[in-house]
């Protein structure tokens, strides 16, 4: 029996494993010790994703009877039992998990063959390991024995289905893991260490996703029970910040003798605060259309980075929804949406109503400002030009959750000022954001490598 298992094909490392550890990762699954298994189980619980390639095996080196490789069941003619002699079938299926019906169900139903008379069918002894619903080591050692001779009474499609399920549920890695002896010393053991450490460290950036609870209160999204309503409520602070700015824009357009249609059109289809105010200044100064368009492009190019940074979180959305969302994306709505989608993409209604609310306020404010431009002549009236900066302060404070974020914010801010001083103008924000984000990424990877090296130098963690 042991020889049979030794000939089982060894699975290739999954693409996930290769992507994470490179080709040098041992191509065969190996044992991990009890400590590591516990640690893995804990991490698996914490992160909800299993470590690919390693299994949560029992403490080793206890020899566990490995499950017999599953035998292919014969094609079974299922007869109909007469009412006088119903034959019961007892299959110990209690341990099997309840699963949604398979799509194959319909086809299976069609291939049931109705025989003329009931018959006893010999089935080859099939021994299958129970599925592994939890990482508890005792669970998968239970073996379901199906009796040698099964009298089949009422034909049920469940029979075939359960066999299918069991086949699906036996992980090939697990079989091999149980039959592999624990490598005592040597390179494979080092691989084990490095794999475990790498996995430990691989979750390093994940702490961003698990911030301490006290640091979340500002950015915590309201429960999206009613998507439209929660989105509108979420947009209220942005709207409060937009109103003075858009009024300032309207006033500026009014006193610069920009026609009303152009002012409104700009707020509706451009919808980007700073570039609109700059464009009004340029139009009033008599700049050429090309200058205005090019400046707008440069000023708003930062949205490229925002859109890219949201792409992973919203990959489950349809293209139409993604385009709709980012068409109305500004610095402020981006900050809110990025905060709301930190764990998972929020409801579509929430995001769209957030965007539309902020957009409507922006348009309304421009109209109000344009109409009132004779009354208010100073756009710096009442310090309202500072509202958006204050909103950024609050949003930034809410986004900073770790010391590394603090460093990232400081680096990006200082480099932005440096780039401004160097005369890069509106490209400064884009460059500074890239510098900060790339620097932190490289630093995190360096830390990861250092920790891995230190752990290996100390001779392992077990």
């Amino acid at each position: 029996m042991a020889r049979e298992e030794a000939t089982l094909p060894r699975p290739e490392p999954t693409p996930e494993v290769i992507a994470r550890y490179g080709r040098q990762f041992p191509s065969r699954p190996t044992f991990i010790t009890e400590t590591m298994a516990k640690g893995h189980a804990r991490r698996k619980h914490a992160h909800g994703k299993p470590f690919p390639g390693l299994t949560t095996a029992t403490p080793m080196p206890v020899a566990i009877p490995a499950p017999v490789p599953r035998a292919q069941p014969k094609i079974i003619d299922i007869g109909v039992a007469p009412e006088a002699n119903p034959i019961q079938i007892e299959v110990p299926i209690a341990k099997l998990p309840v699963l949604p019906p398979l799509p194959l169900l319909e086809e299976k139903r069609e291939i049931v063959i109705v025989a003329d008379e009931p018959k006893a069918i010999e089935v080859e002894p099939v021994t299958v390991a129970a599925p592994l619903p939890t990482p508890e080591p005792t669970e998968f050692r239970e073996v379901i024995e199906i009796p040698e001779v099964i009298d089949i009474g009422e034909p049920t499609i469940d029979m075939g289905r359960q066999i299918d399920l069991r086949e699906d549920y036996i992980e090939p890695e697990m079989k091999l893991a149980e039959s592999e002896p624990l490598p005592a010393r040597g390179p494979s053991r080092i691989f084990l260490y490095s794999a475990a450490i790498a996995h430990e460290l691989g979750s390093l950036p994940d702490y961003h996703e698990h911030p301490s609870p006290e640091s979340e209160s500002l950015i915590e999204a309201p429960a999206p029970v009613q998507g439209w309503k929660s989105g509108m409520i979420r947009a209220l602070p942005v709207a409060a910040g937009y109103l003075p700015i858009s009024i300032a824009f309207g006033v500026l357009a009014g006193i610069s003798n920009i026609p009303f249609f152009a002012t409104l059109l700009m707020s509706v289809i451009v919808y980007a605060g700073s570039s609109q105010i700059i464009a009004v200044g340029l139009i009033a100064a008599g700049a050429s259309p090309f200058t205005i368009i090019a400046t707008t492009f440069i000023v708003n190019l930062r949205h490229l980075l925002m859109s890219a940074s949201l792409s992973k979180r919203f990959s489950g959305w349809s293209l139409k929804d993604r385009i709709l969302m980012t068409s109305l994306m500004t610095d402020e709505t981006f900050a809110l949406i990025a905060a709301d989608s930190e764990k998972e993409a929020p409801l579509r209604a929430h995001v769209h109503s957030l965007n539309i609310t902020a957009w409507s306020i922006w348009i309304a404010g421009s109209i109000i400002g344009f109409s009132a431009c004779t009354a208010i002549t100073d756009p710096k009236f009442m310090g309202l030009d500072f509202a958006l900066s204050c909103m950024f302060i609050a949003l930034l404070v809410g986004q900073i959750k770790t010391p590394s974020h603090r460093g990232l914010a400081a680096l990006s801010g200082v480099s932005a000022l440096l780039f401004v001083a160097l005369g890069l103008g509106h490209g400064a924000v884009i460059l500074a954001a890239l510098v900060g984000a790339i620097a932190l990424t490289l630093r995190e990877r360096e830390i990861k490598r250092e920790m891995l090296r230190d752990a290996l130098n100390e001779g392992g963690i077990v």
Partner: protein
Amino acid sequence: MSPQTLAFTVVMMALVTWIPRTLPISLLAGRKLPEIATQTLSHLPVAILAALLAVQIFAPGNKLSLSVSNPYIWAAILPALIAIKTRSLFLTVITGVSCLSLLRIFVF
């Protein structure tokens, strides 16, 4: 500038704003990017906010102004403390706007 030219300019402004907004999320979503790229992208929100804020406060009008006569620096102190303490967007904005208008009336 004639109304036709103005309308054309505004439409082109909208186009060059819309394309950078929608293009990345249309092309990138659902693709598997290398880990270094996703890691960098995940840091971008904080980096963008910090860079925008630094320019608005320390370089208003894109001119570096690190002197004591820059009212935005003084006006940003209290809202920053309020934001750290209360984490309320409304309170922060109200404090900041009041601070700046008071500073403009009495100091600058």
